[in-house]
């Protein structure tokens, strides 16, 4: 089930759950995997010299899950045989808590590192998710660039960062 692997969730994230789902999928395919690479994004205590008290993440969940599936497909085209799990959390998060967890399984380690980096770069570029930072003295919606899943220049930039 893709829902095990690609989801927006409102509870604490578990890397182990994602890794287990991928290991099982790889085994079901009969090939297993030689490498699992993971990334966890966590809440920083300071942003541009302001002390962060907590964060809130908001998502357009149905579209975010479709974006995760698109990222999975992009990874499958570039790194054949790679399997991907992406969970992004929403709601209130405290300092140090995980906001996003990604695990990639591949036959060999080199492409596991690359594909995992690519996944987080693409999540940041395209997923319809927003971070609201609350400080001692105010709050700010963080805004990057408008999401465009078909922007090939952005996709290439993510690929270059992943393969640097």
């Amino acid at each position, binding site marked *: 089930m893709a829902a095990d692997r690609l989801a927006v969730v409102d509870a604490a994230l578990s890397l182990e759950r994602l890794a287990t789902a991928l290991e099982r999928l790889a085994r079901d395919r009969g090939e297993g995997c030689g490498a699992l690479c993971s990334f966890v994004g966590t809440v920083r205590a300071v942003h541009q010299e302001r002390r962060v008290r907590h964060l809130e*993440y908001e998502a357009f969940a149905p579209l975010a899950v*479709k974006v995760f599936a698109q990222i999975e497909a992009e990874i499958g085209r570039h790194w054949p045989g790679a399997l991907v799990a992406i969970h992004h959390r929403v709601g209130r998060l405290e300092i140090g808590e995980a906001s996003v967890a990604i695990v990639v399984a591949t036959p060999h380690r080199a492409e596991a590192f690359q594909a995992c980096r690519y996944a987080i770069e693409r999540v940041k570029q395209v997923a*319809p998710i*927003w971070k609201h930072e609350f400080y001692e003295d105010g709050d700010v*919606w963080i805004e990057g660039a*408008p*999401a465009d899943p*078909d922007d090939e220049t952005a996709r290439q930039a993510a690929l270059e960062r992943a393969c640097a």
Partner: protein
Amino acid sequence: MRVKVQLFARLRELAGRGECDCDVPAGSSVADVWRAVADRHASLKPFAGAISCALNADFARMTSPVHEGDEVAFLPPVSGG
């Protein structure tokens, strides 16, 4: 015809609501829906050049045509991760 509009993050806060109905003429595009919403909530206007849009929970273009009952979402610049 009537469409349902969804606003997220700062757009939602500026408009004071995350969902509203919007009446637009037949043959309208997503851009026409945006103009109707921004006319009602002037604080949204500065975002015109910096939003993405979705139609029935799929990414769309501002030129995409809309139909009765469609869900049109406007997305400010994203910051997940």
